[in-house]
């Protein structure tokens, strides 16, 4: 068991509820939600881009709100409800926003896409897809280095039905 310089335990026991199923975990306090999802729960749909809160690739929902999993300690999510790209559609099919991204070719390399889609799902729930301008502003925390922005906006516009 790892300890701090003063002999205190650095491990934390907590419950992570991801996509509707709860798991009891014992992890080093330094583990971020992003690393817990990818490396412990093998949910690799959530991507590690910049890993410092600048790109949005790691976006997930915690209690229904979009957050950056790279700047969230896993232990802080004890008892919270985490939703990842794998849990968007409960029936094994695609979520309407996923379908819209395919229909509009809203990606190129695809690395930022799970974060884009999680952010877009939250944006629709926030009621912020009223215009292309509004979509662009409230999606600005999700960077796409391939520059697929016009098609991303088109996909979200389509999914919003405005």
């Amino acid at each position: 068991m790892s300890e701090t310089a003063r002999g205190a335990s650095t491990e934390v026991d907590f419950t992570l509820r991801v996509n509707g199923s709860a798991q009891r975990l014992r992890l080093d306090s330094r583990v971020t939600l992003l690393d817990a999802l990818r490396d412990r729960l093998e949910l690799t749909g959530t991507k590690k881009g910049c890993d410092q809160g600048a790109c949005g690739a790691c976006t997930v929902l915690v209690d229904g709100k979009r957050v950056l999993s790279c700047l969230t300690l896993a232990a802080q999510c004890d008892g919270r409800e985490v939703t990842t790209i794998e849990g968007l559609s409960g029936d094994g099919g695609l979520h309407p926003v996923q379908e819209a991204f395919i229909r509009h070719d809203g990606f190129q390399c695809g690395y930022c896409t799970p974060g884009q889609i999680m952010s877009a799902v939250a944006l629709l729930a926030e009621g912020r897809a009223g215009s292309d301008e509004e979509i662009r502003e409230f999606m600005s925390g999700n960077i796409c280095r391939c520059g697929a922005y016009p098609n991303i906006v088109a996909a979200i516009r389509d999914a919003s039905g405005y």
Partner: protein
Amino acid sequence: MQAFEYIRASDVASAVALVSGDPKTQYLAGGTTQIDLMLKDGVLEPERLVDITRLPLRGITRDGDVLRVGALATMEELAADAAVAERLPFVREALLAGASTQLRNMATIGGNILQRTRCRYFRDPAVSACNKRAPGSGCAAVSGAARMHAILGASEHCIALHASDLCVPLVALDAVAHIQGPGAQRSVPLTEFYVLPGDRPDVENVLQHGELVTAIEIPLLPAGTRSGYLKVRDRASYEFALTSAAVALAIDGGVIAQARVALGGVGTIPWRVPEAEAVLHGAPVAAQVLQAAADAAIHDPFTLPGTAFKVELAKRTLVRVLETVTGGSA
């Protein structure tokens, strides 16, 4: 990164006792600064983190003409508040300009006012010269890439910018921080909360180690007051300010009866500008008055080749937002 012990605080008193009793213990709230500086940059190395996010410091309540904002309210929650939309529109504008929605869902108001500088030299422990990280070691930024740095309150000791957007209207509004210490509570206006770097840039505010900001009180603007926040930046969104300005004006019959002005993107602390307020107060709404206010706002800047442009840009930013806010009353 150094290993640390994680403790979730159960009440305010025990959280304050844990942190104030140990210089190696720090608070954790939204984490957008703290986790970044610990896990990613290796700048902060606490041995113990006290997670305060489940403490009951979240509510936003209105009492007459004052809004009391719990320190753990998020930026997104404050931006969605009805009283903010109605009576503090420039606070809402600054919040929405301040970060992505993901960050606004995480970042707390207490954390926002306590955010650390974005200075890349401060954030890179491989850079040895940083008076903020290591007092007396010098400042790498003054001879480095200075574009995103401060020109007011700056010196050869430190040019690190206070990058908060929210704090710009907050200092203009005379918002007050409520602070819980191990023994007592106290209240400090934000205009007296921040400490100019001088030759000790490591001292950023008046908080003693362990003191916890529990709430911010924001006086609402009188009904009819016009306000605006303008942020000028290298990208249309999701970028720190090069310059910004927050203004609130009460205009009566074409005359400015009251003016509140503050600047962002230029100061080592959020920069209230009484000099500009004095020019505006009692003056008619006229182009030369707005320009005179902007000229008065910037004096004795500490500029470098990389930051000299900010003097004129800050003035133009202030003129522009004054024009917008006074539109139709000249």
